């Protein structure tokens, strides 16, 4: 992988089924709103050897009209919502600070968990993200420092501690430790 400036990474990786699924979803999503991919997929993207059945994506808050356009296009491209049946239900759920999950018709795995940002650090991600350019597409992901802080100091499961350690190792020459400490203070409140 190669950093191009501070906010872009060129990654010459081989495409997995998980990547294909995500790229299909993102190509639709990015026409309707800003997004940032967070959590487990970020670690997997940079080599962590584990599977996941869901990918977490934060999207900038949309009003119902704009959300309806996004939902309609997702449906036209074969996606459906696992945990709500109608537009009203889906929008109601995401507006109530809950996540909504989208998968391809007739499947549940993999799926994408979409939510609006709730906390200040989550809102900050829309200004402080990384762009990853791969041979099969371009995506926006959380900055690495916030992922490490969130996994190590909030989630704290074995899997999350391992994800944090992997990211810290892989990015050790690029990580801003002061930034991790600042995020730690924010997320531990």
């Amino acid at each position, binding site marked *: *992988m190669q950093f191009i400036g501070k906010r872009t990474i060129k*990654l*010459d*990786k*081989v*495409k*997995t*089924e*998980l990547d294909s699924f995500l790229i299909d979803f993102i190509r639709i999503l990015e026409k309707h709103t800003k997004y940032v991919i967070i959590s487990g997929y970020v670690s*997997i993207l*940079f*080599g962590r*050897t*584990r*599977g996941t*059945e869901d990918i977490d994506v934060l999207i900038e808050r949309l009003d119902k009209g704009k959300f309806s356009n996004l939902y309609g296009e997702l449906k036209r491209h074969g996606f459906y919502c*696992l*945990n709500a049946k109608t537009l009203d239900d889906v929008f109601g759920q995401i507006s109530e600070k809950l996540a909504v*999950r989208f*998968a391809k018709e007739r*499947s*549940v*795995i*993999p*799926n994408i968990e979409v939510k609006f940002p709730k906390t200040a650090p989550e809102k900050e991600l829309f200004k402080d993200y990384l762009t990853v350019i791969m041979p099969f597409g371009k995506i926006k992901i959380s900055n690495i420092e916030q992922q490490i802080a969130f996994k190590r100091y909030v989630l704290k499961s*074995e899997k999350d501690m*391992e994800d944090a*350690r*992997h990211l810290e*190792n*892989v990015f050790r020459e690029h990580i801003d430790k002061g930034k991790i400490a600042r995020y730690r203070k924010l997320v531990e409140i």
Partner: protein
Amino acid sequence: MMFDKKKNMEERMKFIDLWAEYVRTHSDRDWSSQQKVLIDSLIQSSRSWKWTPEDYLRMKGEL
């Protein structure tokens, strides 16, 4: 024989460090080809489970 959780964790962390070093020192194509085998096989095997959305959401504690 008792399961030594601490030792198991140390060994897992050692593997994490070794693999991260491999990722850092080998081409993206190299490590991602190996990773692809694991990720694709997990997704393919999950397709045979025939879960309904309700089964899945119950498993996640969301229903």
